């Protein structure tokens, strides 16, 4: 029954979506009409209601729609499908859904081979590429300063994030917290909060903090720190949930208290994955710090943004080269270190 609800939601949405697309294609509204939210809402609603009726009718006649195929119960899936892809309703359902979306995407992204191979455009791109490959080494000292700022920014944000995430990860692990009612509610609240923080891009955090503490590396560091806490907590708690129960029972049976059990039975099992993932996080933060710099987070990103705004492509080339070298070095080093301590 539950599967049927999921399937019907899927089908109503897919039919409603297709009907809305069909309506827009036939009626060809102007931009003003598009922006009229009230009419748009009514039209969409009507299309979805028709989609709902259609779904209802199809279910009545036992037609196997795409939704029913995806969400059917496991024991029915085991029986296999007798009808082939092109002979079945769901096959056409999937195809129409895919191709309709594909065609709409071509229009929306203004895909054009003409623009891609336009001679003047190509010349412009060539100019930039040549400038990028002939970097202006005069700004190398400033560039180095800026990239050091970025690397240290990433390091600082990781270092502050690690102890906070370490503590939170135990609170976010089901096998530690899930045993009592209070524990489970704390676990749920922290977990939801964590998911919210994680779903906000570091770029947005950087904008928030650059208003809060002013543009510069401090804002960028705070933005990286808060996303690192969320992401490390999530990853760490998954390591904790994966530890083997044996040592936990072993330490419990000696009469140890909960903190001692965590320290002696859980921590030794997670130390290596923790270190490994933390190094990886630092590596990610260096790359992220560059991007965050673009919105005022300081470091090489901010410098890159300045030169790019003035169309100083030789200087941009220097900075791009620096970023490539540092990111490559960090990436390689972290991969080797993680491999070695496994």
């Amino acid at each position, binding site marked *: 029954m539950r599967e049927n609800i999921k399937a019907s939601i899927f089908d109503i949405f897919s039919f409603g979506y297709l009907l809305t697309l069909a309506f827009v294609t036939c009626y060809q509204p102007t931009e003003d009409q598009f922006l009229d939210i009230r009419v748009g809402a009514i039209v969409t609603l009507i299309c979805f209601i028709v989609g709902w009726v259609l779904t209802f009718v199809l279910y009545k006649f036992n037609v196997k729609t795409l939704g029913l195929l995806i969400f059917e119960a496991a024991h029915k899936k085991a029986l296999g499908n007798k009808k082939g892809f092109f002979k079945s309703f769901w096959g056409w359902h999937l195809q129409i859904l895919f191709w309709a979306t594909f065609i709409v995407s071509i229009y929306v992204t203004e895909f054009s081979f003409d623009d891609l191979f336009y001679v003047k455009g190509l010349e412009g791109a060539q100019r930039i590429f040549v400038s990028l490959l002939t970097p202006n080494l005069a700004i190398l000292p400033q560039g180095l300063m800026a990239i050091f700022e970025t690397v240290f920014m990433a390091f600082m944000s990781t270092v502050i994030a690690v102890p906070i995430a370490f503590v939170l990860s135990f609170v976010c692990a089901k096998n530690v917290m899930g045993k009592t009612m209070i524990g489970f509610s704390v676990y749920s609240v922290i977990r939801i909060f964590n998911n919210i923080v994680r779903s906000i891009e570091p770029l947005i955090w950087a904008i928030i903090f650059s208003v809060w503490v002013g543009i510069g590396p401090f804002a960028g560091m705070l933005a990286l720190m808060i996303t690192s806490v969320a992401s490390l907590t999530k990853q760490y708690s998954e390591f904790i949930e994966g530890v083997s129960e*044996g040592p936990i*029972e072993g330490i419990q049976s*000696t009469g*140890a*208290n909960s903190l001692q059990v965590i320290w002696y039975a859980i921590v030794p099992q997670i130390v290596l994955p923790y270190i490994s993932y933390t190094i990886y996080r630092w590596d990610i933060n260096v790359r992220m710090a560059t991007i965050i710099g673009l919105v005022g987070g300081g470091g090489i990103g901010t410098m890159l943004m300045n030169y790019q705004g003035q169309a100083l492509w030789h200087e941009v080339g220097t900075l791009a080269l620096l970023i490539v070298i540092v990111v490559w070095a960090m990436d390689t080093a972290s991969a080797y270190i993680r491999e070695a301590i496994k």
Partner: protein
Amino acid sequence: MSTILSVKNLVKTYPNGVQALKGVSFDVKKGEFVVIIGLSGSGKSTLLRCLNRLHDPTSGEVIFDGKNIVKIQGAEIRGLRKKMAMIFQSFNLIDRHTVISNVLTGNLHRTGTFKSILGIFSEEEKSIANKFLKLVGIGDKANYRADQLSGGQKQRVAIARALAQEPEVLLADEPVASLDPATCHVVMDYLEKVNKELGITIICNLHFLSLVRRYATRVIALKGGEVMYDGDPKAIDNKWFETIYGEGAKEVHIN
């Protein structure tokens, strides 16, 4: 000899509805070497874990040191576990720590949380740990990492850890089930030594009847969560064996 442990009508029903123990009753006297036998799933492991409260019994009584331990909580449970040490089929050591550090965890119940997180143990505790490592014959392995040892050696470390608790009872959950036949006897011999020399009462789950006859002073057979037999291990004949393990079962001897 006085009764050290008295189990009365013990019932354990898991949340998924499986009834692992259906009213088990028996007494254990101080200094006995009790072996519990039965098929996999007959409730042996559940029974041991109900005794030291790794699992919570559903109903019934377990009287240990004159106190019913079925409903105790928190610090009282830790006090109980201190006196009732346990070893496991999969050893359950901390693999990344040294052997001596593993044995020292037997002292956790009397070490403060802060001290134990810093890993501070007294010289006396260390010398006691070394003494027990020598007792189980691996005094020279103290500074090896636990995951460097063989299965039989790991189980001896687990015994030393249990002894460091200075327990009155030692629970052994299939201590030799993942060991080869020769190592089996080594580990069982040490358990016997612990029983005879230190006077620690042992309650042990086993699979092999030949080991039961060799080491047990008393045997309890479980089937489907109920006690089928309670008495002298020498008296288990083929008829009893078939009742416990089902028709057509053949006894396997290991030497």
